[in-house]
């Protein structure tokens, strides 16, 4: 049976991890490669690297980093952050990324999704959606959550899938950083509205939150950063717990 995936997310700036991490036996916690190896060994199913420097002059640094990661780990990983053109994607996939994640650029130019899917296949095109609940609905936000749009998250997700995206990474801005749990209502709505996998993001604080997003949110995968980085939840412990809760995971 296809398992639910647990995905640690690492923020990268100028080739280094940004948020602090609290791991034993890591020589250089700022080195994304060291962390990637550790997460892979701890049982992560996949990794996401989000480049928050994301300026053109940093592109080369990023592709070199991607190449080092790809050489050193044997699980899949996605790279996102400021990707806006076919050339950006080509560079990262050639460096060894398995998937790329696009956000604002896809919203501003939805045809980019189709062009990428036609050229590289849907399986490597992840559309990241940042959404916030206000006035009784969930709206899409751009530019790292700074710019509001009038588009409902579920409508944008459906459009992105119709254009060929192979996966949706859905972040609830209301919940992100709160550790109060994932926004399972919008995750469920999107997951049941599209026929591609949905990765739940934003709000993980306890192991029960992961169970809830799989059971109630119908998520296919769950992404988190700080609970893993600060070792508040061990990935293997989390997977053992989920298995006890009758959720299929890879152990």
């Amino acid at each position: 049976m296809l398992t639910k995936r647990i995905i640690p997310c690492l923020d990268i700036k100028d080739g280094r991890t940004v948020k602090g991490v609290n791991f034993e036996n890591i020589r250089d916690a700022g080195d994304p490669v060291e962390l990637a190896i550790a997460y892979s060994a701890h049982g992560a199913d996949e990794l996401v690297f989000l480049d928050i420097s994301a300026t053109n002059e940093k592109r080369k640094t990023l592709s070199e980093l991607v190449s080092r990661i790809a050489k050193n780990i044997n699980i899949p990983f996605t790279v996102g952050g400021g990707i806006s053109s076919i050339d950006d994607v080509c560079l990262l996939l050639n460096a060894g990324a398995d998937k790329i994640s696009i956000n604002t650029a896809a919203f501003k130019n939805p045809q980019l999704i189709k062009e990428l899917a036609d050229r590289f296949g849907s399986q490597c095109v992840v559309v990241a959606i940042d959404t916030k609940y206000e006035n009784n609905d969930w709206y899409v936000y751009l530019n790292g959550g700074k710019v509001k749009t009038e588009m409902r998250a579920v409508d944008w997700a459906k459009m992105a899938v119709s254009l060929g995206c192979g996966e949706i990474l859905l972040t609830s801005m209301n919940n992100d950083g709160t550790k109060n749990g994932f926004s399972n209502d919008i995750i469920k709505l999107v997951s049941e509205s599209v026929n591609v996998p949905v990765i739940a993001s934003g709000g993980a604080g306890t192991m029960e939150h992961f169970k809830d997003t799989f059971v109630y949110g119908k998520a296919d995968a769950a992404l988190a950063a700080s609970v893993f980085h600060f070792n508040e939840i061990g990935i293997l412990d989390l997977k053992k717990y989920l298995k006890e809760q009758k959720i299929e995971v890879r152990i």
Partner: protein
Amino acid sequence: MKIVILKYNAGNIRSVTFALERIGVSPIVTGDIDEIQSADKVIFPGVGEASSAMHFLKEQKLDKVITDLKQPVLGICLGMQLMCNFSEEGNTNCLGIFDQKVSKFSHTNKVPQIGWNNIFDLSSNIFDHVNENEYMYFVHGYFVEVGSNTISKTNYGIDYSSALKKDNFYGVQFHPEKSGDAGQKILENFLSL
């Protein structure tokens, strides 16, 4: 030992190269016919779309080269599907090594299947020291039904072929290069055939 990774217009070649380098093997990535024919082992990778991939292989006259190979050949993902006789993806006539058809997953499931799923009913030496029900990483929207060439099965709504074998030809639907230590074991087994 000379290992060739067949280079054509499909992605994912870097990942396979890196996986072999982790095992300590330096593959040659090439579309050159002489190099392919003189290899000890040939890996036929691929993530992409069937009809454009077949078109490219025919244009480069690689279709005949592949089917005539006598050394062990391993098709991965799209590579395995192209070794079948027909794919519903773009209604494409493929290489016809495995007498099986490639069909699209029905929409009762999310398509593509992305993630870790288990392999069972393992029956080939490329699975030596790999546990029954081991998890492998899959990314695919099309599948091969269970047939006489099936050497492992996986369930996604239905049981289907997650690996095939006929004579010197092997195919795996999953990505051994991305499937942790168990996936690496399968690559090692293939290299020691």
